[in-house]
């Protein structure tokens, strides 16, 4: 009984280590290939269009409503202490430091990350990845490398967009709807935000881009190992990729905040 229990723990530990090893190797092969000639400009542009440009609407919409909610909640909290003038500062710092990078990463995971897993997963089950190998094309370089470059370009830009539109959303709630002086709102935004806040948000966006793309592409690439072959396998991989990406975004958010605050 005890031996079986220990064996089970051992198996689980080995499985976790193997998975970690595979993820690290997958990431390293993909990243090293960013610098291997010839550069895959065409594919990078295509994926940047898909991950970045096509996410603009959803990011703008999420940013707007997040900012508006922050404006509303912030106003009713601050007004109790007679500090409603600090609303601009509260909205801007919350968005730039925390909510901007995290919400952007989660929204891109839902829109583009899930698509990455599904597409690569289908390629796996329909033997397209094997076909690449038979043509002596490195599948990780072919599929993962352009996507990670596209994500590294897109995440910080979309985070910036989310922040700006979120601040505008706070302005709509606070100034247009609840009557805070618009000059005061904008002045507190400008005065409270420092370059280190903006940089911190961008560092997070960069880390999230790597985390989300690696998990989503890895899950698709190894669909057959974790979820089996067939449509059900791809759907299971996609669900797992989205859930794990969101969890790891929050975990890394805490780690980065802990070390940078």
């Amino acid at each position, binding site marked *: 009984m005890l031996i079986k229990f220990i064996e089970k723990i051992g198996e689980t530990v080995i499985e976790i280590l193997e998975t970690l090893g595979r993820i690290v190797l997958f990431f390293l092969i993909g990243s090293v290939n960013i610098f291997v000639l010839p550069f895959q400009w065409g594919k990078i542009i295509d994926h940047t269009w898909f991950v970045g440009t096509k996410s603009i609407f959803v990011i703008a919409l999420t940013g707007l409503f997040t900012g508006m909610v922050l404006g509303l909640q912030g106003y009713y909290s601050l007004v109790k202490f007679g500090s409603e003038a600090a609303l601009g500062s509260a909205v801007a710092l919350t968005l730039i430091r925390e909510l901007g990078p995290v919400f952007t990463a989660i929204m891109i995971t839902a829109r583009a990350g899930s698509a990455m897993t599904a597409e690569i997963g289908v390629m796996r089950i329909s033997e397209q990845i094997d076909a690449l190998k038979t043509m*002596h094309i490195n599948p990780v370089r072919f599929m993962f490398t352009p996507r990670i470059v596209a994500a590294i370009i897109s995440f910080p830009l979309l985070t910036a967009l989310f922040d700006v539109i979120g601040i505008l959303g706070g302005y709509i709630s606070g100034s247009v709807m609840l009557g805070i002086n618009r000059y005061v709102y904008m002045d507190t935004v400008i005065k409270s935000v420092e370059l280190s806040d903006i940089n911190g948000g961008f560092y997070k966006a960069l880390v999230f881009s790597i985390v989300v793309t690696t998990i989503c592409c890895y899950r698709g690439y190894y669909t057959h190992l974790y979820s089996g072959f067939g449509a059900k396998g791809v759907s299971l991989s996609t669900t797992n990729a989205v859930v794990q990406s969101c969890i790891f975004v929050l975990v890394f958010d805490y780690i980065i905040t802990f070390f940078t605050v």
Partner: protein
Amino acid sequence: MAVPLIQFIEVAKSFGTHRVLKGINLSIYKGEIIAIIGKSGTGKSVLLKHIIGLVQQDSGQILIEGEPLHKLPAQKIQSFQKELSYMFQENALFDFLNIYDNIALPLVENSKFPKAQVKEKVLSRIEQLSLTGTQEKFPAQLSGGMRKRVALARALVTDPKIVLFDEPTTGLDPVRKKTVHSMIQEYQEKFGFTAVIVSHDIPEIFNVAQRIAMIDDGVIRFEGTKKDILDSHSKILNAFVSGEDI
């Protein structure tokens, strides 16, 4: 007797608890067309995947021109594998690439051919396989038969020395089947490549292949020419060829 180009010696392979290959002994000679026949699920495709390196055997040896594959230096393995081409059972075409790009992919990604030469090679294959006018279309827009021909065009575009065909005519009508078979024969005569064809097209494949090997229950039960099949008294072989269940 010539040294076989590829030789399987007691090759065994299991997936989990399922033993697919139980000790394959097979010789493939340079420049020949050899067909591998056998019931579905007997490991014919797995056998092909061993040659191209997609699957590694659990035991036994694969010899390349008399030398064990696993003992060859990495560079030699790589150059051997570059001479191979594989046509997948389900075609494995890339949904996000159009027909031209699908066929051009192995040339674009690996060779240092100038664009004009790639175009010339791809268009020539497109024409030879009666795919003219489909260049801009995507695989999903083509019929099953056309997709098969695109896969064949992609397999042949690199002028490989060894081509592995995994059921190249599945899903084709009899006319197209005949076309694909004649094309394999014609190309093989023209370019002199070695062809290994996994097929269920009996008896048509006997007219295409110079030798036939039958796999059953994880081992090769028969290896010989069309004449050897007709003369054979093997119960398993005769039952399979005549479509009887034993």
